[in-house]
């Protein structure tokens, strides 16, 4: 194994299709027009010395090292900023160039410490490399002059020297080593789009500064790591490299956080992870990362991680560590007992949207083939199940229609119910890049998210609607488009059912759906809505990106249909730059759905009642499958409370924290006789478990994740599972204990089974993925390269189907007792229930959930910034501290759900989407009042959680 080193071409690739031929060092080179001479040289295998150039950012031309000579041109142009031209004759190495370059390097090194041997970048320093490349042998200027290197010059304080900034938990900034190449500043601007860094001062006083001369952690820096990656020296350096040293091999794998699915190089020394570096060839992230994927992997070695299986009779008992064999036998006996006593349908399971496709496939197979029922569900129930239903009805498939690259060709974007800069940060950065190039943005969100206005971006329209009125808003947009004749008739006639369109057009044209008529419902001025609709319909390639702010409502599925209607009506389907783009929450929520995790569907979204599909699996698995749909998560909990559902196997999901109406979830779990939790940590659900099976991290196993753009990416094992088994092995051993004759020796064999049974995966295999890097399903004979864009030559269902979308107000209404509307979301540094990120230094940025409340509402209640407040709904109450901000409108409050001691889901209710039972997280009527501290429930819960985490023979484990 080697350390993977991507070639740095120095400047970004040109997208021109026109080719230009020139001669470099006697070699003829043909490249796209607009390519720099530096890049053209590198493509011919000639490495021109450089320091300020790197292909992640545009050319800058400041270091004067990449100079070349061009026949017939005067002077020594910089190869990074000089584009190719037909017939140029370029020399990259001449006596004159050699002298100049050596002179430049002498100047750099005269103001640079000479501690190479003890420097963290030793072996990975471009300055060191360039000194070698230009043959630097001597620094004629000496080292005693003015400098930024030494704290003292001849005993006197050196005012140009600055100490190392170690404020960021993950990397250090050492100004003494800085060569002011501006690569970090440009990476922050061009790649990340945060503009947190700048160069302050002029001439010899120039230096890199975070924010307004702040330390990194106090500045706007979001710790994405792009600057660290761009830095050619040890100025910006990962702390892990400082502690461990340089890696010796690396393996490409896929991030286990959000649905963007970034590719990373896991850089290793032995089995120790030195650092995660975004992989330039990663098709989802194109070499970028966020603070979670880049840095927040420390949870895998956290002291709270459970490494041995545990069993207990009652949930009030302390845990007892047992061998794996005992644990498997215990679970098998219990599930068999329960089924004997209460019937075959009294048990079920939940697959994990954090585990691999292969693991998810095995869990649903265990339930269908081993338990003999279809009581399997997954966390998509509580996030994107309405996407599956809504897009399935209108387009014929639940698939998001685009790849992430598509954003580079979009002209006008609607972002609704999503907060990409926090929830899907790498996509957020890619979107902001396109916006800076001139694309227009419409944000539909109750909250003023960062995208509404930020450095060098501003939404053309922000429609701050009242939570729960998405369908009214989307239908009003359609009203404007139809009544003003802005729809794309040719597209609709060609690709959609025209009579259904006419029916729908008549429906949306009704006066009741006009922006004026719904103004009172949404609270958004009709004029803004009309403007936004006109912009979207006439602004060129129109794309819609949405998240859980659309789906997690009682009309979630209807809103998804309304989005699909809008895209069809404006002809924005079937090519790059357009489309309907669900931003999926978890790393493999797309995959878990694909793999048949829903109770009514076998892998590949085929209904369980379909005889032909069941036949495929029955033959292969040698069992008879139940043709009836099984229970969904909320139905399982209802059935448990009712007494007909008694046992559950939960792999990698924390329903007690993540699912709504916590008290109902805990009542359901408490009513069961055997709750089996497989996870890294004793999560909140484990408080109600009888068996705990330790899980493994994404670093410890092989498999695949499928991201939001349907891209199947490899996950590669870089270290031995600390708990002894990868999760797929645990499920297999459990199946064996239950008498199933499974014998997979590697996850690739599971993928082969998936490909053999599921048409959209027909060509997928580990060998094929090795060859292709990654593919987007459908990947079969018809689409051997995979399918970056869906519905290219027509909709999957045949004709696109327009569906009427009548707005129906949710039953969750404000009133005198609960006058405010609570909506929930997430934050950049934390992920979902926080089980992983809370166990990393990311808590520096967010160590508690806060309640965002408008100054007006706060003042009415006598609430000041930072005060403890009581947040109550008809479902329950909790306390947390207030954050007063006008990001939320009066009447709306907002919080995150990352911390178990807040338990925002005590507040959320059991209302759900009409079609899928996806919970209505985004609208809860609440009251907020001052409070003295934690509620009684929180104290009780904290004590119960502490009790239930006791392990016999061990000191009490900390949360």
């Amino acid at each position, binding site marked *: 194994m080697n350390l993977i080193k991507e070639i740095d071409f120095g400047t970004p690739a040109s997208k021109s299709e026109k080719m230009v031929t020139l001669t470099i060092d006697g070699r003829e080179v043909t490249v796209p027009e607009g390519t720099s001479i530096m890049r053209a040289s590198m493509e011919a295998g000639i490495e021109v010395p450089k320091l300020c150039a790197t292909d992640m950012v545009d050319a800058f031309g400041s270091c004067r090292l990449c100079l070349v000579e061009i026949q017939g041109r005067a002077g020594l142009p910089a190869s990074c900023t000089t584009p190719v031209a037909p017939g140029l004759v370029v020399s990259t190495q001449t006596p004159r160039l050699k002298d100049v370059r050596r002179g430049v390097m002498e100047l750099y090194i005269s103001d640079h410490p000479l501690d190479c041997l003890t420097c963290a970048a030793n072996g990975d320093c471009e300055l060191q490399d360039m000194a070698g490349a230009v043959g630097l042998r001597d620094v004629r200027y000496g080292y005693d002059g003015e400098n930024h290197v030494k704290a003292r010059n001849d005993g006197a304080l050196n005012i140009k020297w600055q100490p190392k900034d170690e404020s960021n938990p993950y990397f250090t900034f050492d100004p003494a080593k800085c060569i002011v190449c501006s690569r970090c500043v440009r990476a922050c601007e061009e790649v990340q789009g945060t503009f947190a860094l700048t160069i302050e001062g002029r001439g010899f006083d120039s230096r890199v500064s975070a924010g307004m001369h702040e330390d990194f952690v106090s500045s706007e820096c979001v710790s994405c790591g792009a600057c660290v990656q761009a830095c050619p020296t040890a100025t910006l350096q990962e702390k892990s490299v400082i502690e461990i040293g340089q890696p010796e091999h690396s393996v490409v794998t896929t991030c286990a956080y959000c649905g963007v699915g970034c590719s990373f190089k896991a850089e290793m020394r032995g089995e120790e992870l030195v650092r995660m570096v975004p992989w330039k060839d990663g098709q989802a992230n194109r070499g970028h990362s966020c603070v979670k994927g880049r840095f927040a992997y420390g949870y895998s070695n956290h002291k709270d991680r459970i490494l041995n299986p545990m069993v207990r009779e009652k949930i009030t008992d302390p845990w007892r560590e047992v061998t794996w064999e005992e644990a498997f036998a215990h679970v098998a006996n219990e599930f068999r007992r329960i089924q004997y006593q209460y019937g075959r*349908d009294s048990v079920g399971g939940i697959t994990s949207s954090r585990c691999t496709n292969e693991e998810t496939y095995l869990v649903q197979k265990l339930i269908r083939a081993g338990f003999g029922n279809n009581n399997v569900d997954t966390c998509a129930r509580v996030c994107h199940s309405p996407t599956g239903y809504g897009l399935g009805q209108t387009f014929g498939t639940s698939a998001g229609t685009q790849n992430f690259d598509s954003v580079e060709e979009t002209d006008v974007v609607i972002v609704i119910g999503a907060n990409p800069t926090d929830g899907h940060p790498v996509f957020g950065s890619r979107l902001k890049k396109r916006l800076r190039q001139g694309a227009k943005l419409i944000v539909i969100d109750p909250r003023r998210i960062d995208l509404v206005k930020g450095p060098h971006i501003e939404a053309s329209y922000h429609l701050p609607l009242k939570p729960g009125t998405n369908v009214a808003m989307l239908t009003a947009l359609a009203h404007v488009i139809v009544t003003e004749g802005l729809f794309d008739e040719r597209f609709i006639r060609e690709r959609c059912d025209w009579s259904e369109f006419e029916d729908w057009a008549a429906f949306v044209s009704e006066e009741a759906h006009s922006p004026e008529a719904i103004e009172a419902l949404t609270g958004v001025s009709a004029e803004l809505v009309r403007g936004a609709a006109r912009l979207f319909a006439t602004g060129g390639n129109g794309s819609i990106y949405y998240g859980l702010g659309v789906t997690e409502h009682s009309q979630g599925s209807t809103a998804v249909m309304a989005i699909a209607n809008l895209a069809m009506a404006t002809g924005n389907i079937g090519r790059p730059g357009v489309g309907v783009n669900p931003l999926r929450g978890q790393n493999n929520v797309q995959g878990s759905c694909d793999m048949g995790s829903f109770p009514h569907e076998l892998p590949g979204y085929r209904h369980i009642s379909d005889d032909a599909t069941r036949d495929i699996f029955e033959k292969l698995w040698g069992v008879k499958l139940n043709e*009836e749909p099984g229970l969904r998560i909320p139905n399982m909990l209802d059935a448990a409370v009712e007494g007909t559902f008694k046992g559950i196997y939960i792999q990698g999901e924390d329903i007690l924290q993540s699912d709504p109406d916590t008290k109902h979830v805990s009542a359901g779990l408490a009513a069961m006789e055997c709750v089996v939790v497989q996870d890294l940590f004793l999560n909140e659900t484990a408080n109600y478990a009888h068996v705990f099976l330790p899980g493994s991290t994404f670093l410890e196993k092989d498999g695949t994740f499928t991201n939001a753009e349907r891209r199947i990416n490899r996950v590669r094992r870089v270290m031995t599972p600390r708990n002894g088994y990868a999760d797929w092995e645990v499920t297999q051993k459990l199946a064996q204990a239950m008498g199933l004759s499974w014998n997979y020796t590697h996850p690739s064999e599971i993928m082969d089974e998936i490909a053999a049974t599921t048409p959209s995966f027909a060509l997928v295999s580990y060998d094929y993925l090795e060859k292709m890097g990654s593919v987007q399903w459908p990947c079969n004979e018809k689409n051997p390269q995979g399918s970056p864009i869906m519905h290219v030559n027509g909709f999957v269902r045949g004709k696109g189907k327009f569906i*009427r979308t009548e707005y129906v107000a949710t039953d969750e209404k404000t009133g005198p007792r609960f006058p405010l509307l609570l909506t929930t979301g997430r934050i950049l540094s934390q992920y979902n229930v926080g089980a992983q990120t809370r166990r990393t230094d990311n808590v520096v940025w967010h160590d508690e959930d806060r309640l965002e409340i408008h100054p007006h509402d706060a003042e009415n209640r006598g609430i000041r910034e930072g005060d403890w407040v009581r947040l109550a709904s008809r479902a329950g109450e909790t306390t947390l501290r207030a954050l007063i901000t006008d990001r939320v409108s009066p009447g709306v409050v907002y919080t995150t759900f990352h911390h178990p001691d807040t338990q925002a889901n005590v507040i959320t209710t059991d209302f759900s989407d009409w079609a899928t039972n996806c919970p209505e997280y985004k609208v809860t009527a609440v009251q907020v009042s001052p409070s003295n501290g934690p509620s009684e429930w929180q104290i009780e819960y904290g004590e119960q959680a502490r009790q239930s985490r006791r392990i016999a023979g061990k000191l009490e484990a900390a949360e």
Partner: protein
Amino acid sequence: MSNTSNDAKLVRMANQIATFFHSQPAETRAPGVATHINKFWEPRMRRQFFDIVDNRGGAGLDPLVLDAAPLIRRPAAENAGEHASAN
């Protein structure tokens, strides 16, 4: 087997489905509700549903749900005593 709070929940779910189909073209309404329930409701839920329809006069159910009832598949008799076979 069923209790009132669960009944109320089921009625609410059925009525929510009906609410969506109320605004759809007339001929698709009852079949729409029925197809939806057939596709997504586990037998236990449909059994409870028919208990409400047959024995309690469909109390609380939207008339559209009652229109759809004849199109909803009746689940097989309860399998309470049925034991899962290994493999």
